[in-house]
Every structure is written in C-alpha cells, then in structure tokens.
C-alpha cells in the first residue's frame, strides 16, 4: 500500500511529521514534507511546523515505513466493535443515581 504523496517520480523521499505540543501530550501528526535524509527532515520539520512554539519535540517517519489498513475494507476491518455496546460505560444504566459510579 503506497503512501499518498510518495512517488517514484519524486527525487526526495516523503516524511510524515509528528509534533508533541507539550510535555505530557502525545506526538500528533501535523503534515508531511520531502527531505533527502532524516537529519534534514527534522530540521525542515522544525522550520515548517514549529515556527510559533507549536512543539517541544518532533518525530519524522519515512512515509514508506508506515503500514496502513486497507481503505477499501474499512467496513469489514472495523466491524468487530459493532453491536458490542457493552464495552461502553453508558451501557450499564442500573447504577444511575448512585454516586461515584
């Protein structure tokens, strides 16, 4: 499964960029960029995605290294939780009115 934007016609490989906006939070995907290697990818990511103190840490991942679920199978692939609403706290209603539950 090829990553969108990653093409043999591009001279530089594509990198996906993840930024941690603050300590205690996860790295979140912010976008992508092209760079010849990982060192320049990190520098480019800093210039492109953190010009206004948006982050305290940056990850770059070669887009080609990401494995994704098949978009055409999205129904079947994510079907398993359907009908299993007992996995949600809201399923259990008898405790309504009882405190701290």
């Amino acid at each position, binding site marked *: 499964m090829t990553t969108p934007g990653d093409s043999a016609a591009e001279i530089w490989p594509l990198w996906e960029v993840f930024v941690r906006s603050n300590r205690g939070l996860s790295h979140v995907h912010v*976008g992508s960029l092209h760079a010849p290697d990982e060192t*320049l990818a990190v520098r480019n990511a800093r210039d492109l995605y953190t010009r206004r103190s948006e982050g305290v840490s940056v990850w770059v991942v070669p887009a080609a290294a990401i494995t994704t679920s098949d978009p055409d199978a999205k129904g079947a692939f994510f079907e398993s939780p359907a009908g299993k609403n007992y996995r949600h706290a809201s399923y259990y209603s008898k405790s309504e009115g009882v405190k701290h539950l």
Partner: protein
Amino acid sequence: MTSTITPDMSAPVAISVEEQQFNDLIEADSRIEPRDWMPEGYRKSLVRQISQHAHSEIIGMQPESNWITRAPSLKRKAILMAKVQDEAGHGLYLYSAAQTLGATRDDMTDALIAGKARYSSIFNYPTPSWADMGSIGWLVDGAAICNQVPLCRASYGPYGRAMVRICKEESFHQRQGFEILLELMQGTDEQRQMAQDSVNRWYWPALMMFGPPDDDSPNSAQSMAWKIKRHSNDELRQRFVNMLVPQAAVLGVTLPDPDLHFNEETQQWDLGEIDWTEFHEVLAGRGPNNAQRLQRRRDAHEDGAWVREAAAAYARKQSARTEEMAAS
C-alpha cells in the same frame, strides 16, 4: 461520470458502489481522504486549485522580499522576514496536499517556471513604496483570509487541514499590514500621502482576487457541488468590502471607489464597476510584473540546483555508509 454528482433521476444511470460512497460522504458533509475513491474531475479540480494556490504563496514572497533590505527598522525587517518565511511554509503545506492527489513536486515546479501554471494575479503588481507592505498585509492578505477561512471546511481532508494552519498565520499578516498603514497615517503629510497612494493602487486588484463575477466563473458551480468551495466569488467579495469600509475609517484612508455606498435595503456596501479587462490582461501574462516574477522564480530554481543535488548526494553517501556498517 465527472460532469455531475447528482444522478439525473429521469434517466437513472448505474453508478458504482465507490461513486455512491463518495457521493454519500460529500452529502453528509464528511471529508474525502487521499486513498478514497474519487471522480477524476474532482481530483483534477483539486490539483489545479491547490497547486495554483501553492504557486501563489511562493510567487507571493517576491513583492515583499523586495523590501526586506530596505525595511525602516530592525523590528520591521524581522517581521517582514517572518512573514516571507510563512509564505514559503504555506506553499510547502499546499504542495504536500497536492502531492497526496498524485501530483509531483517536480511537475508542479516545472509547470510554474515554464509559465504554464497560474498563480494569483495580484502578485504581478509592483511594490514601489514601503506603504505597499502595509497594503499587501491589510488588503491582499485580508482578501486571502476571506477566501481561505471557508476553505478550512473544504471536502478534501489534506486541503482543509493545510488551510487551518495557513489561516492561523495569515491573521498575523493582516494585522501587521494594518499597523504599518496606521503608523503612516499618524505620521507626516507625506507619509499619509504614501499610505493613501498605496491603498489606491492595491484596492481594486485585491477585489479581483476573488475571481471573476459569478456569471462568468465556469468552474464555480461544480466546485460548490463538491463542497471544495463553499461561497461564490461575488458573495466573498461583498463580505470583504463590508469588512473593509469600517477598517478604512479607522485608518483614515479613502477607498478609491466613488460609487461605493451603503445600501439600506440589503444592509451591504454596493461597489462600483470592476475593470475586468485589467484582470484578464494580468491573468493572460500582460500585467506589470509577470515576466519579472517568473524569471526570478526560474533563476532561483536553477541557482538552487546544486543545493538539491548536493543534499541528495550526501543522503546517498550516508545511507551507503550505514548499509556498509550494518554488513561488517
């Protein structure tokens, strides 16, 4: 298949499951993501719009970079550099969005420097005075924001997300421009004259940024049906003028339209005739600076070739070394 997304009920056409899914997502105001099936026309439309938008950001660096070395203070110079750097960033966000649709960066760059791709005609106007840095921020970036805020909800996910980032940054651009003009308007007679002269030159081209009038905008209807575009050109232009009039009053500048007047009935500002001949001339490449802007972009691309080659060579060498080390 690409010309309409609403099947004609009188002559039912069998559409594929994928096309139905696409239509349902658009109908439900959901988003289309890169790997989803999409009609060829939708993809083409987006590549055209997003790449033109990216080119505009990149060419848009030129009229302003013109003033970096001549900014009136160190603070203004730092602000202007930050702004020009933002424009480069906006171009990159947008090129990346277009690349998710299968367009390559090289093809887009080549089309631009070969003069085959379009970019916003506003950047073909010259910036002879410092006040133009103010007018570009206030009027040009102001018009851009008006255009771009609804694009944050464009039906194509990567485009919408790029626009969210861009809009956040554009508001700094608009405010700093307003401030430049305000300071000039509070200065000497000569400075006030400079500000007014600049507004006179940029006002009409800024209104043209919204594109041709609705009855002369062939792609609009389909773009709106696909929810790429949310409002018509004239609607956005009107919204912009309504915002400008009170802002001009704060600045103390006059908008160069003798026919501009408040319409009690519609509660909107009616504007005079726009000179569409000028718009089409500039679009056709006959604006004051078209040739110069393209030449500069072409030179920058060619002058930078060795940097791209050196970076690629270095990366190849590094990865060969890593492999060697892993093998030994």
